[in-house]
């Protein structure tokens, strides 16, 4: 969520019980501003916190002029000193997908492979040493997977200019209460996958400046989002069941929205059994 809105937003997402201590809140106010200065970001988003066994990673993302471009990600162990994470590659995502278990809390921790298949065996012969994956790479891959799978925005919050870049929609006044309860009013803020598969009839109703992303309606499995009204019905909170810990909030008829992740960093693969 937007760094400048952090204090108010933390109050709204605390329904799940996870949040930040006053110390962290106080330091984030200044350290995120300094990040913006040092890295020349246009926007800084506080992405959330991944709990490891011994410590926690606090993640921030920085955005440039095109909001849909790949974002720079930074992590910190204490919210004071931030380090830039390497950009993500498909190989990292694939390797990290095979790891199971909790994060340790130490970025230089090395995981050992438990499964071997033919490809790994070949690589072994080439390099002469065992393939290991560092926790840092796992962290990057996990953040990328979470953003890709469950990073969401309300419909109309971003517009695509004719030149192709994406920017915030200054005319966005918020969703109405009925719209906010429907899953089709929220989009994944990532490269669209299903958009091309829509029928021509459906595409005719879309507005190409605001409807250029996938909506949540067709997420598999169905029911992997919970939509609740909290605080007496004034805040709409969406929680993802696929990545437990991701919380999205929006106050209807206002511009306040954002998502944040507080969790283990593990995908909930038991989801089909639990619904």
């Amino acid at each position: 969520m937007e760094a400048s809105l952090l204090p108010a937003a933390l109050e709204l997402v605390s329904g799940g019980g996870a949040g930040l201590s006053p110390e962290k809140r106080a330091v984030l106010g200044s350290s995120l501003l300094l990040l913006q200065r040092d890295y020349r970001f246009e926007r800084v988003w506080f992405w959330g916190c991944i709990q490891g066994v011994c410590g926690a990673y606090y993640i921030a993302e920085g955005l440039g002029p095109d909001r849909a471009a790949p974002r720079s990600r930074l992590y910190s162990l204490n919210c004071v000193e931030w380090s830039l994470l390497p950009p993500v590659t498909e190989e990292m995502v694939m390797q990290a997908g095979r790891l199971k278990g909790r994060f340790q809390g130490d970025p230089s921790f090395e995981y050992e492979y438990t499964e071997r298949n033919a490809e790994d065996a070949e690589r072994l012969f080439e390099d002469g040493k065992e393939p290991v994956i560092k926790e840092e790479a796992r962290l990057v891959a996990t953040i990328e997977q979470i953003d890709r799978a469950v990073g969401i925005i309300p419909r109309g919050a971003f517009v695509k200019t004719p030149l192709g870049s994406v920017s915030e929609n200054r005319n966005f006044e918020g969703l109405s209460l009925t719209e906010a309860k429907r899953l089709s009013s929220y989009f994944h803020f990532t490269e669209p996958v299903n958009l091309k598969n829509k029928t021509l009839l459906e595409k005719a109703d879309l507005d190409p400046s605001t409807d250029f992303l996938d909506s949540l309606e067709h997420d598999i499995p169905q029911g992997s989002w919970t939509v609740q009204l909290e605080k007496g019905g004034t805040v709409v909170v969406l929680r993802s069941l696929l990545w437990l810990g991701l919380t999205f909030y929006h106050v209807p008829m206002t511009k306040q929205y954002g998502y944040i992740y507080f969790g283990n960093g593990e995908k909930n693969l038991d989801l089909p059994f639990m619904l």
Partner: protein
Amino acid sequence: ERGHGPYQPHEPGYGLYQPGYSPYDDQIPDPKSRTLAIRNAKAYLLKSSTTSGLNLYDHLANMLTKILDEQPTNAVDIIENISKDVKWAHFQKKMDTLRDEHEILPTFEAAEKRKALFLKANEEGDEELEEEIGETPLPNVMETAFYFEQAGIGLSKDESYHIFLALKKLISVQPIQTCRFWGKILGLEMNYIIAEVQYHEGEEEEETEEEAVTEDGGKGVGEVEDEEEEKEKEDEPPKSTYKPPPVIPKEENGTGANKYVYFVCNEPGKPWVKLPPVTPAQIVCARKIKKFFTGRLDAPVVSFPPFPGNEANYLRAQIARISAGTQISPIGFYQFAEEEDEEEEVEGGRDTYEENPDFQPLSVAEMVDSLSAWVHNVQSILKQGRCVWLNPLQKTEEEEENEEEEKAEEPDELPQELQQEIGPPLLTPLSEDEGIQNIPAWTAQPSTSLIPQYAVAVLQSNRWPGAYAFASGKKFDNIYFGWGHKYSPENHAPALPPPVQAEYPSGPEITETRDPTVEEELAFKAAREEALAAAEEEEDEEGAEEDEEEDD
């Protein structure tokens, strides 16, 4: 003789050399034409659209007025949106003769309920105030929330305060001795806020009586049926010899897994609902399934193995498991009462404790460093589903009589000898907790490393993610915020259905063999005919006599 003096407007060539006039003005000699052109243009702009009834002139005027009033930055970039907004606004103000009924949003009702929490009941006079100042079962939720907040755990202050008031309402309604905010469990449609409560002695005997009545009634009906069946035994198909495994009785209210009573509500302001006591069968089944809570207590739990109960029972079972696994206190805070004889408690272990008046709190650094500074203060649940082991094969006198009659029919069933299950005793330190794979069962951290003098020791459970505990000096508490499931690094594998039962016991009397094939049958037939032919030749003489006899 006037030279090329100042040209008058009506003269041709007037505009050619004057500043501010284009050279082409010359081509419209008649100024009236310009006004005519302007008027035509204006008439065109004023033409109402056939579809919407608006006209462009008014619309442009409104738009420009709006822009000049609001003066947005970079107006040219958002001009289309401004135009759309103006058009939209045009349709909003309809002067209807009917006044719109004020929309009653559901948010208003919810706000009403929350406001009701804050109203002081009128009947409470000054007498009640004295009681409250003294010992009150109401826990100081805000104080606990403050300590947890130091570690970044907890709900927003608003919500905590609402829960505080909701608990106060609960206490005023029910006869409660101790009360604690247990935590919050998230669900699909709604969430649960849970309060852990202990009644005053002798206050909650209502439900047990109802259950005893139904049991007696059931036994009476069973006896009558037996007599009828004995008469018709020969005509009935064979009775099933299946005997379900004995049902393990649940623990008494006030002991073991049912030591505390739990009340839940979906939101502060809604009425509190009491959860039924938990039975061992429910706990055993809850260990095998993993389902999300929907938020409605009467929702069915569809799972395999089938859960005996609805969501209220499943919730209660999970609460019991979480409490047994994660309710902890600093060592020394609770101690066993010294008056009990040690000879009595062999089977169950001690299950009561009292506060230690001489408790000396350890420093925060010590609480964080070693896990043996913490102990469990809730009995763990055995595999059977109870805290105190019970042998289900112990029969009462009535059951033994029935068994003697039926024993003849059950040569196969042997009562298995069950081993007594023993769990860790109460007040075991956390260092005995086994971790999962290579992760310890608990993660301990101080709330802040910058100000160690006022830090709070915080423990997070790794086996039940969402269970937290804090300790600071003499204060400590436990809480749970989460989805209500245990952590397992392996994926959940649901139980497989049991193997297909045998229809009948396979023995020398009845065995199953394959049907003979056509070739085998023909071969058998041929062989038999040969044998018959051979026998007939021998018995031809005797056979003729027999035939004559049979003909008679």
